[in-house]
């Protein structure tokens, strides 16, 4: 009443004020007359001293307006406050109902926020370098000489190169040996990335020339005895000593001078790169591939397309100087330039996008579910709304109240969800596959918080809008109709049914995707790697400076180690190799077959294979079958005739049905002991064929393998040890360390890992995706069940009177059962029918992630449809069954 009065009061103000002013002037004039003015001029004088009456009026109006606005604003705010309080009271009144909604929302928001943080860190954040959009990856065959040629001739971009494979070196500081991840980089790499050392300097051109002394990373990787430390190496091994520059670090037994320390957030090329050495590159070295991966920075004003065109001209033109180019027609055709960010994220993109899409669908299911619950409750609240409308609450007021109620819940849930995500994120990151790039960029920041806030507000509005509109209709419609019982409009029943059906559809999509990924994962783990994983343990022994020692000392160390292990307890058998399956690194070689020439007739045929130096017990220990011929024996020593074994694939490829036993091959590698010192590459005789092995990964084809006896092998940088234990105890690590310490106490033993877990690591990414999607699908099915149940239960309670009437008029309980059961099954079937085409459409995007299963595998679709049908059956049965037990008499009295 008071407000109404105030609103009207404004209108009378003008007249009141005019009266007041007239009174004032009149009184003033009288005063002047008393002082002796004549009446005519007294009035003029009174008006003069009063000033402009119109101005006064205008000013008063302005004041009125201003106060009116403030009052309205504060009234609005206090209404909102009331609404929030009212909402809170509501929550207390129906704790179980709200608990379901809050739980649903918190889970949804926490899950989507933490996954968004992952996607944001890995995919969306720009590279942490200045003008990251100008950085590109130059795709070539990564020959050493390519970089030098490109650097001399390219005008559109400046290039830098680094050694592409993860590489570890043995470092001793204060007598403690440690293995650190190292990288070889050209002097211009830090300039191209735009990051300079925090302390000291980068490498200078001279330090990357051929002819350095120290050899931390084998032949390709000479150094001038200088090293740059990562910030964490500086912290862990030098205690952040500000005078670290100029100090000495023993790398592989060779003293290196520290010339620089990189800033803390610099992780290139790998997250754990701890040391950088100069990578020497020679223009003339166009032999070995995959030793110098290139990045580039576009020069000012040059576009990526221009750079690509230039690289695609320069690289193929190298065919004229590359000695073997004539044998490899494909060389240079795949040269390319692409954004560096894309190339770093690479294969992770698809997995993450699929997961993001999945979380989107899940959030949608959550919203639909909550909206449905709210709508159902909206029906139950009709009476309250009618009462409030009757008491004078306007349409806008009712709508706002419902919206405020829902937004309060949504934002509160958003806050709890973000906190939950914050708590879970660390765990989640640990659970992520370790080979995912850019994991270090994942954390909850303002962007992620903003995302969480917007999705919680969006859900709040989305799921609050339907009930709010309903409330506003209530306010108008039902008030007119009077309180003759609550009428449920059929359109609303339809909306809730449609929403429940939609939940089934989305559950179908998620479940199909999850099952496909799980089957693919199952197929992956069922792949036979070619050796027996059971009780097999791998380790690495890396005596300092091992790569630099001469070949006899390699063999001596290996023999001592094998002898020690043979006598150790718990060891059934043991073997040593330069590399073992699933090692990251480059173990390829070019070999030639005696008497085989290129189809063109020019020279000998060169073929690529993975070559391993293995000790005699290798095939026995790994349980790799020798199919034809013999395995190596202790007689295949350093001075015996040279022998090799090849894998079945190589035998098949080059000899077909004939036997390759007795054939000769040689390796195009000048580092091996040459014959007669005259520079002739020695020939090796094939003595056996070994069964296939998955060396690089499980998904691809088996690798073409060539095995060389360890005693005749030359490319040994550290020792890979494989041990078949005779039980499952873990004490094998200590046994190995004891054995190694007895031979060389300064040699670190690292990477001790059972082969079962090594195998697990190779499927870490698909496993992560499959498990996560499986969890989403389970939640979605569960929510769909809750949603459908909620709809049916409410439909039943709303139709109690109708059912009562039907029963009273002779309907059997079977009819009643059919009524509700039919409703439930109808929405289940419609949901599944809508879901399957959507699933067919969307699982196409999964096909690149699948292994051994088709994206459109009918068995998967039928299986999922059947499971959801069963869920629908269960959910429809319970309320329908309850409806048959309704007592008609009571139902008719029911209100």
């Amino acid at each position, binding site marked *: 009443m008071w407000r109404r009065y105030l609103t009207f009061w404004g209108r009378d103000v003008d007249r009141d004020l005019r009266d007041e*002013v007239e009174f004032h002037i009149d009184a003033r004039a009288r005063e002047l007359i008393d002082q002796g003015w004549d009446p005519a001029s007294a009035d003029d004088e009174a008006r003069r001293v009063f000033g402009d009456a119109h101005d006064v009026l205008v000013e008063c109006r302005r*004041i009125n307006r201003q106060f009116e606005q403030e009052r309205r604003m504060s009234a609005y705010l206090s209404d909102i406050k009331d609404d929030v309080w009212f909402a809170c009271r509501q929550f207390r009144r129906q704790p179980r109902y709200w608990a379901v909604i809050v739980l649903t929302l918190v889970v949804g928001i926490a899950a989507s926020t933490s996954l968004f943080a992952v996607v944001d860190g890995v995919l969306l954040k720009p590279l942490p370098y200045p003008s990251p959009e100008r950085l590109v990856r130059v795709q070539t065959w990564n020959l050493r000489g390519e970089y030098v040629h490109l650097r001399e001739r390219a005008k559109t971009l400046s290039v830098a190169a680094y050694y592409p494979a993860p590489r570890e070196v043995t470092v001793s500081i204060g007598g403690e040996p440690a293995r650190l991840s190292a990288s070889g980089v050209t002097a211009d790499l830090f300039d191209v990335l735009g990051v300079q050392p925090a302390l000291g300097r980068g490498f200078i051109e001279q330090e990357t020339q051929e002819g350095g002394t120290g050899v931390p990373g084998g032949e390709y990787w000479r150094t001038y005895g200088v090293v740059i430390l990562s910030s964490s190496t500086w912290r862990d091994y030098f205690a952040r000593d500000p005078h670290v520059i100029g100090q000495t670090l023993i790398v592989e037994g060779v003293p290196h001078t520290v010339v620089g320390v990189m800033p803390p957030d610099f992780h290139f090329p790998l997250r754990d790169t701890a040391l950088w050495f100069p990578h020497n590159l020679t223009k003339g070295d166009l032999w070995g591939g995959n030793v110098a991966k290139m990045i580039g920075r576009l020069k000012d004003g040059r576009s990526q397309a221009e750079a690509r065109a230039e690289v695609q001209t320069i690289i193929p033109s190298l065919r004229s100087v590359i000695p073997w180019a004539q044998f490899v027609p494909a060389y240079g055709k795949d040269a390319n330039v692409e954004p560096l960010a894309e190339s770093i994220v690479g294969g992770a993109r698809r997995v993450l996008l699929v997961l993001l899409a999945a979380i989107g669908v899940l959030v949608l299911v959550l919203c639909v579910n909550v909206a449905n619950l709210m709508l159902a409750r909206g029906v139950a609240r009709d009476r309250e709304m009618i009462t409030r409308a009757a008491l004078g609450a306007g349409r806008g007021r009712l709508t706002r109240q419902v919206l405020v109620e829902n937004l309060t819940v949504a934002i509160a849930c958003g806050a709890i969800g973000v906190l939950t995500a914050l708590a879970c994120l660390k765990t989640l990151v640990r659970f992520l596959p370790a080979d995912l790039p850019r994991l270090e960029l994942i954390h909850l920041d303002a962007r992620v918080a903003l995302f969480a806030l917007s999705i919680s507000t969006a859900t709040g509005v989305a799921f609050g809008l339907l009930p709010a509109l309903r409330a506003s209709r209530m306010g108008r419609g039902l008030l007119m109709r009077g309180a003759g019982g609550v009428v449920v409009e059929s359109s609303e029943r339809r909306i809730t049914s449609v929403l429940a059906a939609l939940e089934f559809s989305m559950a179908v999509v998620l479940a199909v995707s999850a099952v496909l990924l799980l089957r693919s994962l199952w197929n992956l783990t069922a792949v036979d790697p070619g050796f027996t994983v059971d009780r097999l343990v791998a380790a690495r022994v890396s005596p300092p400076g091992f790569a630099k020692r001469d070949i006899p000392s390699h063999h001596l160390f290996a023999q001592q180690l094998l002898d020690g292990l043979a006598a150790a307890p718990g060891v059934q058998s043991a073997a040593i190799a330069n590399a073992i399956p699933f090692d990251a690194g480059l173990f390829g070689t070019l070999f030639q077959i005696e008497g085989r020439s290129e189809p063109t007739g020019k020279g000998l045929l060169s073929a690529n294979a993975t070559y391993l130096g293995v000790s005699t017990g290798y095939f026995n220990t790994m349980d790799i079958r020798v199919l034809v011929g013999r395995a190596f024996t202790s007689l295949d020593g350093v001075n015996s005739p040279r022998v090799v074994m090849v894998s079945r694939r190589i035998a098949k490829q080059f000899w077909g049905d004939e036997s390759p036993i007795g054939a000769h091959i040689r390796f195009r590698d000048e580092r091996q002991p040459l014959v007669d010192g005259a520079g002739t590459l020695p020939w090796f005789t094939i003595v056996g064929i070994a069964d296939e092995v998955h060396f690089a990964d499980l998904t691809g084809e088996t690798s073409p393998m060539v095995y060389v006896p360890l005693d005749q092998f030359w490319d040994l940088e550290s020792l890979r040890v494989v041990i078949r234990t005779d039980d499952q105890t873990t004490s094998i690590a200590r046994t190995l360390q004891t054995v190694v310490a007895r031979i060389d106490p300064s040699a670190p033993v690292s990477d001790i890992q059972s082969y079962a877990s090594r195998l697990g690591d190779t499927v870490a990414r698909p496993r992560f995706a499959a498990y996560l999607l499986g969890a989403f699908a389970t939640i979605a099915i569960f929510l769909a069940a809750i949603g459908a149940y909620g709809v049916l239960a409410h439909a039943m309670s709303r139709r109690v009177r109708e059912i009562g009437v039907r029963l009273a008029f002779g309907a059997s309980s079977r009819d009643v059962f059919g009524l509700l059961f039919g409703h439930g099954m109808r929405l289940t079937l419609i949901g599944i029918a809508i879901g399957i085409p959507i699933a067919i459409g969307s699982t196409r995007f999964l096909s690149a992630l699948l292994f051994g299963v088709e994206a459109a595998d009918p068995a998967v679709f039928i299986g999922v449809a059947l499971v959801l049908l069963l869920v629908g059956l269960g959910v429809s049965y319970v309320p329908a069954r309850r409806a048959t037990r309704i007592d008609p008499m009571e139902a008719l009295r029911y209100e």
Partner: protein
Amino acid sequence: MHDDRLSILKGALDVLILKSLSWGPMHGYGVSYWIRHVTEEAFTLQEGVLYPALHRLERKGWITSEWGVSENNRRAKYYELTDAGRAQLRHELTVWSRFAGAVTKVVSATRKPAWLLRR
């Protein structure tokens, strides 16, 4: 010729009005009359300026108004101080006397500061 009369600040006008009304209910003209006589017409005040100020104070809830009959039987709007207005007046008076006291001390100072004597 120099005009000795002072122009008045908006904030000060509020205090003057509240103070006038502290004697009891008054109409606008009464307020203006009282101020003129107490100050011996020291202020140049367009008398109309009083009314927006009264208006504002009323909306702030410091005074209320009611139509009544004046001494010479004319209809006039009478203003009266509310409790909030009385409290506001007390507050303004403390502020004012502290301000005025401080200014008076400065302008009526007779001794040159000690640290200037050295010159």
